[in-house]
């Protein structure tokens, strides 16, 4: 599948943003994070900023973005529509929570309830994003039991690493927060390795025989219907990643999981402000790594239409 940058950025940014929003909503509302004005402004600004930037980026992927409002109508059948509804609905409690925290200076009472609702909204929205991909039968690498948990784990992982960087930045970091994001990063790494292992061993029942209805023997593409690449090949016949698969996987693992985990482990041992600098660096490196991971998620996915072209 062609990895359009707008969609790669969208899923990475909203994943991190919703993860951070959910953690802030739960932890600040329950009193684990102090209702500090600047922390609220920067934290909620970062979470809602990432989410908004991601959503705007995804609108840039549309052929007719001015009609995007229509996408809220088909939530009965479409995961994409459900994602649109959930993402917009989540802005309501998230906005109230941000106002309570930043403007009114409190995160208890109804503000805590808004925080919990924002966390639920974030969880639901990330689930709908995952299901968009997990529900597509023609793409076996996505239509698997690894896709939905993957989206949730990566969202929690990148959100927690961002939260830790924030807390460290405000000199209120804790070993629990550090340990939490190291554990989630290791979990994310393990999940990605398991996903790749599963995908590499996939035995897909769909092949050139079933695609053409020609039973038995071998079916070899002799001639394409067209001489140049068409929409189908540009959108779904993307092959660059398969050529550099091993190297790209190493880069993604190093940037998204290994370096951030090492930086965070080093932050355990070092005093402030070094721990804060390392925590911020871990968040930035991981974000770049997740962009590579998400790029690979698209680029490695093989659509059944490529069977018609002998690819």
């Amino acid at each position, binding site marked *: 599948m062609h990895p359009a940058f707008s969609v790669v950025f969208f899923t990475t940014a909203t994943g991190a943003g919703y993860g951070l929003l959910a953690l802030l909503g739960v932890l600040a509302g329950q009193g684990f994070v102090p209702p500090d004005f600047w922390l609220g402004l920067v934290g909620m600004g970062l979470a809602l900023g990432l989410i908004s930037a991601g959503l705007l980026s995804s609108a840039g992927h*549309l052929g007719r973005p001015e009609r995007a409002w229509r996408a809220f109508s*088909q939530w009965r*059948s479409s995961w994409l*529509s459900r994602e649109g509804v959930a993402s917009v609905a989540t802005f309501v409690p998230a906005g109230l929570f941000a106002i309570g925290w930043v403007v009114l200076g409190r995160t208890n009472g109804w503000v805590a309830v808004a925080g919990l609702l924002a966390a639920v909204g974030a969880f639901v929205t990330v689930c709908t994003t995952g299901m968009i991909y997990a529900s597509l039968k*023609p793409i076996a690498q996505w239509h698997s039991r690894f896709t939905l948990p993957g989206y949730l784990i990566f969202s929690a992982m990148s959100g927690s690493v961002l939260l830790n960087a924030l807390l460290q930045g405000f000199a209120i970091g804790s070993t629990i927060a550090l340990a939490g994001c190291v554990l989630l990063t290791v979990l994310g790494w393990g999940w990605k390795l398991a996903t790749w292992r599963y995908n590499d061993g996939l035995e897909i029942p769909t092949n050139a025989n*079933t695609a053409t*209805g020609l039973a038995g023997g071998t079916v070899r593409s*002799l001639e394409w219907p067209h001489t140049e690449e068409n929409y*189908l090949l540009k959108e779904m016949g993307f092959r660059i990643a398969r050529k550099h698969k091993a190297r790209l996987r190493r880069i993604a693992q190093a940037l998204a999981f290994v370096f951030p985990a090492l930086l965070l482990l080093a932050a355990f041992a070092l005093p402030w402000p070094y721990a804060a600098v390392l925590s911020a660096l871990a968040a930035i490196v991981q974000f770049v790594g997740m962009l590579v991971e998400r790029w690979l998620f698209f680029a490695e996915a093989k659509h059944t239409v490529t069977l018609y072209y002998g690819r």
Partner: protein
Amino acid sequence: MTCLPAHTDKKLGLVIDLDTCVGCQACVTACKEWNTGGHMAPLTDIDPYGGDADGVWFNRVHSYEHITEMGGRTVNFPRSCLHCDTPACVTVCPTGASYKRASDGIVLVDEDKCIGCKLCSWACPYGAREFDTDVGVMKKCTLCVDRIYNDNLAEEDRVPACVAACPTSARHFGDLGDPASAVSQLVAERGGVDLMPELGYHPTNKYLPPRAHTTRAASVPAPALEPVRAEGGFLGWVDRMLSH
């Protein structure tokens, strides 16, 4: 609404005979010619005379080499929308632009509602949908909905343009929901198959596999030339002289 109808009164579709298709591309050009002025018009071409031609087509004819223990043969394979019974391209649509008609089962796109998110083309395993980068919306085969019900055409012309154009009658149009229809009987008689049945889209269009190889027909390849054996006598002398 992108929820699927529980039942369609008819299942209009095509039956494509892979035995008789000669890959002449007549259906491809007839489709393009009709539909670029039809329901989904235009079928935009980008840089049609340049080195990087691209454009929207509803019907594409591939050629394959099918090799079995019975021998090998070339199979020409027209590929277009199969107007599936459970088309995921419809249910994934977030705007309601894609829909399946309850009256005849035809899958259509309402271009005025399409936001061009391309998700339907990802959900179609057959590559039936092609994005029009110029207009910014998705396009697909309409089963010539503007021909088959068109009172301005003579009755025999009320078939999809691809069917009307086919010089070898490899394409048949009819109601596949009616077991008594000519197309349904053709499918039953020739053992018509679904494409990628394992994905569960339940395509309406059926493909008739090429007929089995027969031993009655003349062997097509000429017998191999025998090696020239050394001969004696005058001809042998000529052969030896010319071989030097």
